[in-house]
């Protein structure tokens, strides 16, 4: 790999690592360990394809596309795997409840109930991406994105109102 590609990879990694991780976290339903694995998968694919990147799209748009595509692939593959038994861990005292973490978990669960395409749009909105970039990433018109988002927001609000708390659900 050339020095220029290495520098580009490092720059991409430093500047987008957190955002990519948040998207991964959204796809993993808030599971931080899985999000860490997924982050690695994303950057592995970035590295494998960086040499062939010919600026047909903005670099950040391409990175988002790879992130979403890797997440789609990963979610599909994970759903295919038979349930693996969860190892039994020794009992530990429960940490004090963190209201923000509980709200975030609730948001992730609500997002997880949206259809794949809607979840993607909503996560990009939550990540404060401008409409133009969202449209570019998803290859749709801005108008279409705005109309769809209106419906998706309503659905998400409904889900957030009707989802039981994690403790109630358990």
């Amino acid at each position, binding site marked *: 790999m050339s020095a220029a590609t290495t520098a580009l*990879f*490092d720059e991409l*990694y430093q500047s987008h*690592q*957190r955002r990519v*991780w*948040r998207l991964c*976290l*959204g796809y993993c339903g808030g599971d*931080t*360990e899985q*999000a*860490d694995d997924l*982050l*690695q998968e994303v*950057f*592995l*694919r970035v*590295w*494998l*394809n960086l040499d*062939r990147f*010919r600026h*047909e*799209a903005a670099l950040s748009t*391409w990175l988002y*596309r790879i992130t*979403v*595509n890797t997440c*789609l*692939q990963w*979610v*599909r593959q994970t*759903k*295919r795997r038979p349930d693996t038994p969860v190892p039994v861990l020794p009992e530990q005292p429960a940490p004090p409840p963190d209201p*923000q973490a509980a*709200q*975030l978990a609730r*948001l992730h669960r609500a997002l997880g109930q949206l*259809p*794949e*395409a*809607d979840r*993607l749009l909503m996560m990009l*909105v*939550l*990540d*404060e991406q*401008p*409409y*133009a970039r969202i449209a570019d*990433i*998803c*290859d749709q018109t*801005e108008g279409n994105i*705005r109309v769809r*988002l209106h419906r998706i*927001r309503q659905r*998400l*609000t409904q889900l957030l109102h009707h989802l039981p708390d994690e403790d109630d659900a358990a």
Partner: protein
Amino acid sequence: MLPDFPDSDPADEALRRLWQAAPAPEALVPAAEQRRQLASRRRNILLRKFFTLLCLLAAPLAMLWVWLTSPVGALGAAGLLLTGGALLGAIWRQQRTLRLFYTFPARETPPAYGARLRRYYQWQQRYGLPFYQAYVILLNTGLALFFMDIYRGRPAWQLVLPTGLALLTVVMIRRFSHHHVQREQHQLEQLLRGLDGLA
């Protein structure tokens, strides 16, 4: 004029703040360390890609070389063709999978990739099992024919090798019992449903 950024509705704003307050990744490693961790996996994938491509190009030449240098008759040549065909099919499939999982052109949007994934799973749903069974049968039949031809005059080998291959074929095909196939089909249907709305 419509805003460039998603609306600053208070409820939306609260959700955005919550989303961005997600904890930092635990494995927050510097870029150089990340590259070091990924280096061997990257090398393996590139090697697999290179190897499958090499096999696809070299298999017909290897078959030709065996046919020219071994005293094989029509039976042996037919066996060679069947074996080579089966191997080429398997390598082609492997390369298709590698491309699906590791090649991401810059222009490929998530809906386009969703469509690519859908095509892959649809193909697998329809032809995955018959393809595997055909591969096993063609490969073992080809090898059996080839051995029968080159061991002409040595009846023990002529009998033992094809019988062994026939047994192996039965075992490999029976591994895919009815129940296993049904479960696999069910999972693939779920996957395809999950891609609804994307492509």
